[in-house]
């Protein structure tokens, strides 16, 4: 355990080194910065990989709106982030891709207050551009000779896929159960499978290579994205301000453009 903590500390100090210059310059911000009333200092946000594009944009907007702040992101799979937080990584905010993963942090007593759902994500059928196999519904995926990739049940997109297939009463034998949604998507991009169940946001981000086909049963397996301030947050004010910004009109606009739905 000690070694683990030391390793976590090493990783984190590495991160801090990278961002150190940013937080140093905060002290040099002219007094006018403080007058803007918002937060100041460095905010460290641990966020699910599927939020990479939208949160990067939101982070930049937040910095512009609050001069003197610096947002640092750590994007990875939600489960990996939860482990890092529970092992003592000094983060301010945690945004997860599923309430279950966030619960591992709150159950360990590392959350501050209660989590709020800020967006929802829904599954679509990702197919090659132009939909050469003519897939229109979930039931089409059982056509003989059709290769389908799903996420493994242990990861959120796999759990959602299982739920949606159960609702549609479709029995499907995939050729592979990928370790994350990007893995499933890349199999479609490479043409190794004919279809995959991925999040709408992922299909949208890969719109040059794949088409996303909506299906009604995905409504039964909507994924909530919760966000929370962490108990050991070095900058709680900054954390709260960032979460408020994510839920503001500007934040919502960015998230909706990426394909997320309002909660």
């Amino acid at each position: 355990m000690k070694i683990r903590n030391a390793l976590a500390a090493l990783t984190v100090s590495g991160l801090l080194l990278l961002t150190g210059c940013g937080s140093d310059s905060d002290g040099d911000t002219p007094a006018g910065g403080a007058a803007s009333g918002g937060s100041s200092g460095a905010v460290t946000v641990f966020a699910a990989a599927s939020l990479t594009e939208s949160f990067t944009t939101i982070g930049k907007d937040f910095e512009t709106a609050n001069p003197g702040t610096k947002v640092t992101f750590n994007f990875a799979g939600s489960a990996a982030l939860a482990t890092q937080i529970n092992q003592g990584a000094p983060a301010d905010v945690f945004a997860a891709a599923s309430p279950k993963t966030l619960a591992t942090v709150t159950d360990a007593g590392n959350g501050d207050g209660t989590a709020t759902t800020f967006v929802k994500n829904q599954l679509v059928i990702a197919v090659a551009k132009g939909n050469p196999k003519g897939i229109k519904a979930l039931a089409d995926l059982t056509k003989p000779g059709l290769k389908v990739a799903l996420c493994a049940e242990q990861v959120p997109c796999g759990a959602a896929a299982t739920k949606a297939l159960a609702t549609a009463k479709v029995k499907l034998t995939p050729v592979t159960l990928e370790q994350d949604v990007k893995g499933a998507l890349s199999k479609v991009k490479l043409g190794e499978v004919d279809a995959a169940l991925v999040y709408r946001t992922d299909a949208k981000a890969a719109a040059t290579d794949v088409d996303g086909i909506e299906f009604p049963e995905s409504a039964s397996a909507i994924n909530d994205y919760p966000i929370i301030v962490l108990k050991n947050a070095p900058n709680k004010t900054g954390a709260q301000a960032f979460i408020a910004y994510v839920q503001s009109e500007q934040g919502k606009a960015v998230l909706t453009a990426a394909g997320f739905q309002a909660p």
Partner: protein
Amino acid sequence: MTLDSDEHAGVVRPDPVPPSRRSRHRRVPVALLIPAGLGLAFLVLPLAGLLIRAPWTTLPQRLAEPGVLTALRLSLQTATLATLLCLALGVPLAWLLARVEFPGRRLVRALVTVPLVLPPVVGGIALLLVFGRRGILGAWLDRAFGITLPFTTTGVVIAEAFVAMPFLIIAVEGALRGADTRYEEAAATLGARRWTTFTHVTLPLVAPGIAAGAVLCWARALGEFGATITFAGNFPGRTQTMPLAVYLALETDLDAAIVLSLILLVVSVTILAALRDKWITSP
């Protein structure tokens, strides 16, 4: 393991006087002992971490879970098949690199080590681009014979062989270059053809090197993750090897991941130790 091959390469010398054993019992310099100890600690401590953190009380029922044995069996089968494939292709390639002068030999030698420096995930993508459904060879295989390799157990063997073969080639080539060529020359003088010389003189001469290389190759194949999940995907019973099962277990249950890692570790160390005693140390 590489140390072994070096030792044996040394023993194989025609010099009738064995190297002095006394030198081994002389006082060990502290300047070597300290870094050696640190090196050992560095390699062994993470292992200790696994053992300390293991959920010993629930171990039996976790072992009995059906998916575990399936993944373990698949891992052992594919790693062994991959090693056989590497032996069949890698030993001749190592011989070519060690014994035949040809233009571009340095380049070929460098190319052989490419899978070593390539991140395995990239290796998996590269394999898809060649053997995938739309790959250069894969598309033809599919059209002509109806064979598709991704998402099959054969795909796992190919991914593992791709990543593990350099270990075998480097070990065997090293043994070949360290071996005395006078035996081969003598065989040639006595009228043996090159093939006969290879099978009757060269192979027995470097057998310990081949064994050491095969063990390294097998161990690497057993632990393979990145190229396998990228090229062969993940499906229980067909392509889900132990490292893949460990990775997925990590998503939900740290304890399960630790148990799976321990099983893989115990099985592989047992097999390696048994082989070492029976095969490698007594050529």
